[in-house]
């Protein structure tokens, strides 16, 4: 529990943070309890940061609140050192790319068209794509291995191909921080690993990655830092070894869990046990 501090909140902000929140509280109208309460966190620039927690613990709300998509009732959030309310959406979209949990397209749309939407924050109302835009779009499609699907309609793709297309759209924004909400939830092992390795390579190239996931083992392997949420509060924050402790996980997930060291990867391995 490395989040408590006696210093005033403001001075704890570090200009090198990509995403930063302090004492964040979000309470949806008519909800019995706040979705987030006293959440403080720092995502260092260029880091791979994973957010864990049971269903309904506030992970997606945290993502929305960090980018100003839901209003917060208390606390502060900053993106690259500026309060999120100071950013206009267009400038913010040039810095932060988001892959939400799901989306639905109202009309038939091709892979190329969906990825090209990532260039929206760079283009004027009636301006057509410049060579720079075209280059960013093809580069993003190549990185996500969907360049061979460019003219295919989204409705004809497999779940993995759709997710890779959505990641490609976020990369086409050429963001400095990429936020993803369970992007691999419906994917098989290979497709999941492909996306995670792509994210790790992006982080190594200087991009900040903020990943919401349920896969504790993979989070431990890929992320530099973890944040574990429990009913809207921070249960633990820090390096994988600090966060993935048996006692903490048992309490948060309300299930017997054993944590061992995986000799194959050298990081904690989390095994849910049976209740009796």
């Amino acid at each position: 529990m490395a989040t408590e501090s006696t210093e005033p909140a403001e001075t704890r902000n570090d200009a090198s943070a990509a995403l930063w929140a302090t004492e964040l509280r979000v309470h949806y109208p008519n909800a019995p309890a706040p979705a987030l309460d006293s959440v403080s966190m720092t995502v260092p620039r260029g880091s791979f940061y994973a957010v864990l927690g049971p269903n309904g613990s506030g992970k997606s709300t945290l993502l929305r609140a960090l980018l100003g998509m839901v209003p917060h009732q208390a606390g502060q959030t900053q993106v690259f050192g500026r309060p999120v309310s100071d950013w206009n959406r267009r400038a913010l979209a040039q810095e932060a790319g988001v892959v939400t949990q799901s989306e639905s397209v109202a009309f038939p749309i091709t892979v190329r068209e969906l990825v090209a939407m990532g260039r929206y924050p760079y283009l004027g109302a009636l301006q057509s794509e410049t060579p720079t835009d075209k280059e960013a779009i093809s580069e993003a499609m190549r990185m996500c291995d969907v360049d061979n699907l460019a003219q295919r309609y989204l409705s004809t793709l497999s779940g993995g191909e759709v997710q890779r297309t959505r990641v490609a759209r976020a990369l086409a924004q050429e963001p400095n921080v990429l936020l993803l909400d369970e992007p691999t939830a419906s994917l098989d092992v290979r497709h999941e690993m492909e996306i995670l390795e792509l994210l790790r390579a992006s982080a190594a190239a200087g991009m900040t990655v903020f990943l919401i996931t349920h896969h504790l083992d993979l989070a431990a392997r890929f992320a530099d830092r973890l944040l574990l949420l429990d009913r809207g509060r921070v249960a633990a924050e820090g390096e994988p070894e600090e966060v993935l402790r048996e006692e903490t996980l048992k309490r948060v997930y309300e299930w017997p869990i054993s944590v061992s060291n995986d000799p194959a990867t050298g990081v904690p391995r989390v095994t849910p046990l049976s209740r009796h």
Partner: protein
Amino acid sequence: MKPITWAAVLGLAVVLVFLLSILVGEADLTPGQVFAALLGEGDINDRRIVVGLRAPRAVMAILVGGGLSLSGAVFQALLRNPLAEPYILGISGGAATGAVLALALGLAASLSWALPAAAFAGALVAIFLVLRVAATADDQVDVRVLLLAGVVVGAFFTACMAFVLSISDARTVRSAVLWMMGSLVGSDWRTVWMVTLYSIPAVIALVGLARPLNLLAIGEETAGYLGADVERVKRMAYVLASLLTAAGVAATGVIGFVGLIVPHSIRLLVGADYRVLLPLAFLAGAVFLMLADIAARTVLPPTEVPIGVITVFVGVPLFLLLLRRSVGAGAGTGVGA
């Protein structure tokens, strides 16, 4: 074919169908007489028919057909549903009620802008009601609830109109009934200019919103993350599309299904990119309504079938087909986890 080719084809079609439209009519004029009249030569009566009656009617069909088609496409992006359309959503009914009210209260006779303004107010009330009825907890609008809301709001406005008519004089009733069925009869240059003034700025502004409308079609949250100012775009687009619908309804009454058939066909031809879709939908809507007007004048001579009847006859089968497909597949195409 490329979008630019389609634009050229449809632009040419607008010109050709416009010429056809002024060649056809009750008075038996030869093409020679018609063209002479267009150039300001020939018989004064011919000129009066061609320039004074047929031409403004065809231009009105261009403006109203294009406007209804464009606003249909915009409502489809806003509600993320290809079945949205001003007539089905009850927006045309709201506009007609506003217009009838202005007529019945005698406002329309004294103030030239009162009728379109009342139609616009009616359209806004209708869309507000429909959205209030159809909005569920999340921002996803269920297609079935939406259509039901349109029916309910439409029924409400029909009753309002019936009430106003029951306490109005015979002259108001006659023009009001024409409103409810839609007709281009009585289009003159003065109304044409008025509709132009109301709708062309709205058309231009909506085409300017094409890019954010593309983003809205994949969801409001995602559109926001991609840099669109979602609330502002939505507000502007609702107001402009309602204005466009209202301008059409104020001039020609309720003409249904144009905003459904035309954008759907264009989407099949060129895809769903609104930068291409909106201008092409305007051109194709213009062609469609001019053709419907020619049919209205020629299928049962000398009687003129109300043009709203023609568009509904063409639109209903297509609507049912789309509805079956859309409900069968669930509302919208789900993507992602």
